[in-house]
């Protein structure tokens, strides 16, 4: 029965799902508020109603009704009915160069997110932080998953990127008493913001060298400690730097990390990481992880490979840090400690090692879960760890390990129901 219901959906292309989602979120924007009122909810359930349901269990049926009426039924109907036209469009798109096809899909995805998030500022914030978490998780997966080192320095890389980008934007564009009068017009800032982020990423990459070079000679636990020491060093370095206000933190970053900016950077990150790990040069990371001696004997330059993995991972962590600073518009050294490390590690290992899919799933589910369980307050930090322990016990490499994105097959129209995949 369930199989029969599901069957028509197996030939829905990705495009069709996006159409369905777009209709659902548009419907929510148009009719969500009156519907919520009609169902006796104070306002539209912000994060799929999780917090409403947890706070007032009485409202559970109403929230579920809302979710059904706004998301599930319209999306299901449109996806189902629109499968054939969607396949037609997807097939037409598929004849264009892959870049064009991908761009159309991304634009549609962005539209869905934009409309959904437009309903409240809270959604925009959560979404931006989630996208940043995706970048962080993916970049850590390059080192911990693809190359199999247990690196603990990621919050350190993030901090380097966050502070570097913040110092640049505040110092150059914002009239903060910290650095004196702004010397450049804020109008220029929008264009130079990417430069600041990239410089932050490069500084993080430079920091990555301090972990990469010891990794030539040692692996495993000792490298974990070296990376941990690096994290402590970065954190306490920042605490002692008076010109970034030490432990009090930096505030007043310009509000440039809006949703489209964060989305674009995330796409760039996912795309480049996916490219990298699917290339033979990138597969060398796996070879170094699985057997370094064999990699060496098969002409792989293992040192170059290790450096590349650390620098590349650190770069994206730095960019993510820069974006994080401009989303929160305040950073202090406390943002980049052991707690943060535990969170990123949790996302990587929950989602799955050596996996682009897994990183996205891990980052999105842990971030959203963290937000959704907010009404449980402190118990949230019992439930999420328990969940992760269960995942580790039953799937030690994470939920979706060893899966990269195959963009071509993902965007393919699915004309043949029997084809599958």
């Amino acid at each position, binding site marked *: 029965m369930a199989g029969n219901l599901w069957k028509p959906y197996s030939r829905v292309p990705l495009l069709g799902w996006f159409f369905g989602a777009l209709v659902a979120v548009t419907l929510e924007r148009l009719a969500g508020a009156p519907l919520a009122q009609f169902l006796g909810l104070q306002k539209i359930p912000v994060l799929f109603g999780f917090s409403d349901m947890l706070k007032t269990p009485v409202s559970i049926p109403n929230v579920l009704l809302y979710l059904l009426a706004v998301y599930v039924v319209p999306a299901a109907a449109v996806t189902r009915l629109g499968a054939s036209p969607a396949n037609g469009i997807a097939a037409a798109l598929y004849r264009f160069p892959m870049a064009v096809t991908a761009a159309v899909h991304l634009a549609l995805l962005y539209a869905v997110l934009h409309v959904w998030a437009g309903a409240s500022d809270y959604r925009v914030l959560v979404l931006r932080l989630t996208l940043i978490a995706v970048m962080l998780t993916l970049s850590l997966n390059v080192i911990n998953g693809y190359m199999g080192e247990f690196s603990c320095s990621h919050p350190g890389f993030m901090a380097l990127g966050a502070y570097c980008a913040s110092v640049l934007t505040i110092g150059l564009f914002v009239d903060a008493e910290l650095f004196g009068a702004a010397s450049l017009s804020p109008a220029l800032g929008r264009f130079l913001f990417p430069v600041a982020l990239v410089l932050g990423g490069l500084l993080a990459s430079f920091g990555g060298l301090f972990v990469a070079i010891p990794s030539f*000679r040692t692996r495993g636990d000792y490298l974990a*400690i070296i990376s941990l020491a690096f994290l402590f060093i970065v954190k306490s370095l920042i605490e002692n730097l008076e010109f970034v206000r030490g432990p009090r933190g930096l505030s007043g970053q310009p509000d440039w990390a809006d949703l489209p900016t964060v989305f674009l950077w995330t796409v760039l990150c996912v795309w480049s990481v996916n490219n990298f790990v699917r290339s033979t040069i990138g597969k060398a990371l796996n070879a170094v992880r699985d057997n370094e001696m064999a990699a060496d004997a098969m002409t792989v330059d293992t040192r170059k490979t290790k450096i590349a993995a650390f620098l590349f991972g650190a770069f994206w962590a730095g960019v993510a840090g820069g974006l994080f600073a401009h989303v929160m518009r305040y950073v202090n050294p406390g943002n980049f400690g052991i707690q943060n490390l*535990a969170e990123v590690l949790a996302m990587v290992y929950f989602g799955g090692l050596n996996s682009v899919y897994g990183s996205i799933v891990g980052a999105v589910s842990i971030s959203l879960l963290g937000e959704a369980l907010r009404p449980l307050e402190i118990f949230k930090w019992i439930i999420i760890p328990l969940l992760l322990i269960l995942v*580790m016990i039953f799937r*030690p490499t994470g939920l979706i390990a060893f899966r990269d994105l195959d963009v071509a097959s993902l965007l393919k129209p699915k004309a043949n129901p029997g084809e599958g995949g």
Partner: protein
Amino acid sequence: MAVFLQNLVNALQWGSFYALIALGYSMVYSILMLFNFAHGDIFMVGSYIGVGVSMALIALSAWGNVVLPNWLILVLTILFSMFLTSFVGMIVERVGYRPLRNAPRASAAITGLMIGIILETGNLALLGARRVSFPSLIATATYDLGGVFVTNKKIMIVLVSLLLALALHQFVRRTKWGMAIRAMAFDFSVVPLMGVPLNRMIALTFALGSALAAAAGILFGVAYPVLDPYMGILFGWKAFVAAILGGRGSIMGATLAGFLLGFTEIFVAMIFPSTLRDLIAYSIILLILTVRPHGFFGEPYSARLRL
């Protein structure tokens, strides 16, 4: 000179905590080849259990109208808490590590981290955010040794720590159980063949490590009475660093490296502004590990993370 000696005394006390915690890391490492990342939080739990036990003992003696001298209460607290905390360690092993014994090491590290978070949060959920302080059982007496001030507490802390480290050393050398632990550290796979009950031995190792962490927790509470649920995090990670510096699985190494870390931190704080303590201490550690990648007493072999 007096300043130097004064700091030496402080460093000895500070190093005692690291040494006791590092021993637990090292013991578990030596047989399971993995670090129990919940260990820092077991130190915290031990400290809280110590508060509970000592308050219970005080209440008990008041109720029974028996006048127990305070030093006896302290000794009993240490012993009882070590005993109770060892069960916490065994539970952690049973829940978090035994199901993952054949899984990748990194996965076990993650469960350890998560159990640590659960212990912290569980504590917060049970006791709320109010501060818990350790009852002051012995009055501080300060002795002036030619400009160097030594308190009775400091002497006690250092002595008890050394005593426990020595006891562990003797236990591992002399007893049947200790020999079994050493055999397992030497070659995990042959031990079941020799009739050693594997699971029980691993549980014992966790129990011993946790008991030492509890002792460290109580001694810490004697010196710095205000406790908080997150106190184990930084201590745990730093002791982990000490365990690695000492060479994995080496009891002597872990003890020495624990004291060494204490010395480094205290003396860095003596010479430089105290805010630079972590920065310089960890720069030194990074330097040491870059030059001597396998610690002071460890075997130079490179363990790989199994995926």
